[in-house]
């Protein structure tokens, strides 16, 4: 394995990584800077209803006269926050469980495996429906927590497989013989050797969290306050954007999500090519 900086160099040279990072960066900048240019509060009724994009309202207005642009950029922020938090929690949980199962093996592995399978099979939407029916006030934190707590099995499986193959290596035996505790071995010996893998896992979790959050918001089970891209689409459908042909309200939110998640997936593929070069690529 080459040095870190060498890997970075190769990573940047890969077209897929470059394209993915650029698109992602574009949206991140939009999410950070965009709201500064929003002249109105996203949910305030400020303009003429159902107006197409104009110089005053860059992305037009909703059925109630809300500024779509303002909603869009604030929604972007919310989307990124959920992606980071939800993806982060999912990755953390998945990594811990995957490391534990892979390193310990045996009965621990069996039990964790069964647990992982259960959470995997359970259609998370169904569970959230029940929870959301009773939680009257939901925030972004709760949503992220929920997403993280239900999306981790994918990460756990991948990390477990990696841990299995790393566990057999000599440096682990050495650490074990020198008396290091299991947790220290897992986090200081094994994990650093799959940093690239961890990073790619996080990217996938991030993308997944963004998608799940959008779906939840669209169904009406997202945060009860604020705005998000999924919620925009929910409102659009509920308030007749389709029959009224209000494409400026319907199209941008979903397009943004598709672009962000697509960029993440493509980046992931590119990183895989860089970190795990298959000779045939030459």
């Amino acid at each position, binding site marked *: 394995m080459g040095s870190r900086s060498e890997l970075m160099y*190769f990573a940047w040279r890969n077209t897929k990584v470059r394209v993915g990072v650029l698109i992602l960066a574009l949206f991140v900048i939009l999410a950070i800077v965009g709201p500064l240019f929003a002249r109105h509060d996203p949910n305030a009724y400020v303009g003429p209803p159902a107006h197409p994009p104009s110089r005053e309202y860059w992305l037009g207005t909703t059925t109630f006269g809300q500024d779509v642009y303002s909603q869009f950029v604030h929604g972007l922020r919310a989307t990124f926050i959920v992606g980071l938090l939800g993806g982060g929690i999912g990755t953390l949980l998945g990594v811990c469980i995957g490391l534990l199962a892979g390193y310990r093996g045996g009965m621990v592995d069996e039990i964790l495996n069964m647990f992982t399978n259960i959470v995997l099979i359970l259609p998370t939407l169904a569970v959230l429906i029940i929870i959301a029916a009773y939680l009257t006030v939901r925030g972004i934190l709760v949503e992220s927590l929920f997403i993280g707590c239900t999306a981790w099995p994918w990460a756990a499986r991948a990390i477990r497989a990696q841990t299995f193959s790393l566990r057999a290596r000599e440096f682990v035996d050495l650490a074990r013989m020198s008396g290091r505790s299991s947790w220290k071995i897992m986090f200081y010996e094994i994990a650093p050797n799959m940093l690239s893998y961890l990073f790619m896992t996080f990217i996938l979790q991030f993308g997944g969290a963004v998608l799940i959050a959008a779906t939840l918001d669209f169904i009406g089970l997202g945060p009860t306050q604020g705005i998000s891209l999924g919620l925009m689409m929910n409102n659009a459908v509920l308030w007749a954007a389709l029959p009224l042909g209000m494409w400026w309200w319907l199209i941008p939110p979903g397009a943004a999500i598709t672009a962000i998640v697509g960029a993440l997936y493509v980046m992931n593929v590119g990183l895989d090519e860089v970190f795990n*070069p298959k*000779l*045939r690529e*030459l």
Partner: protein
Amino acid sequence: MALRVENLRIYYRTLRGYVHAVEGATFSVGDGEIMGLAGESGCGKTTLGHSLIYLKPPMAYIEGRVFLDGRELPIWDMDRMNEFRFRHISIIPQYAMNALNPTRRIGPLIADLLATRGIDFRQILPELQRRLDLVQLSPEVLNRYPFELSGGMRQRVVMVISTLLNPSLLIADEITSALDVSTQRAVCEMIVEFRNRGFVRSTIFITHDMSILYQIADTILVMYAGQLAEKAPVEAIFRSPRHPYTRMLIASLPRVGARQRVERLKGIPGSPPPLLDPPPGCRFRDRCPLAFERCQEPPPFVEVEPGHFVACWREI
């Protein structure tokens, strides 16, 4: 001559440039000859063996000519080589234990393979059964899936498949490396038996285990860092090796009955040069006790005695 190789140069294409895996190999293997191809890990013996039958990227053909039974083998042309593969030249790969499709029974697998070569499975079945019997496998094996057999059994199946069409040249790539000593013996005996019964005409037996070659090989070709060092009949290699590398190799072999206290294990200090940008001349130069200025120039592989080839300035 069954096999004649002239000035073969095979490099590996990598992100950082060419790795000079095989550098100017010229040798021949006679009818009925079992030639051992020996050397340490990374010396290029597997590359050499594979290039003769399946030259796939990242292996790159640079130059050289290969003749089998007088016909030239277009080793650089993957499609045209199909005519020769399996029928005239065959291989028992290093990964023989995993070489069978896990979801297909062995009989149908062989039938599929033969069908693509225009051979009717039923016609060859009696011969197939005879050969399975020869390697001590029940014909029942044809109805089994690969995972129902042990690793050793799978390897024997592969050995039978690879030699089924009586190829002129068989390449056996490290087929004994993962086995215990008694199984090694059985496998080696099979190889010799295949030659004796005419299933296979010539064999190139790739291994790093010199003691096995002593048992079954007629001649031995020693490689070092991509270059040919010495080729000679097996007795000559062991009794009177002429290349400094071969000499040190033979000397480092432990003798049965030798105890550590009386006779210490001798190794060869140092390690092979990197092949990405190899030093000019003889690549054993840096570790050779006999090196001198002439060694900056690559020594030719010449016949110093009948059937005995060496690439060393000190010996010419």
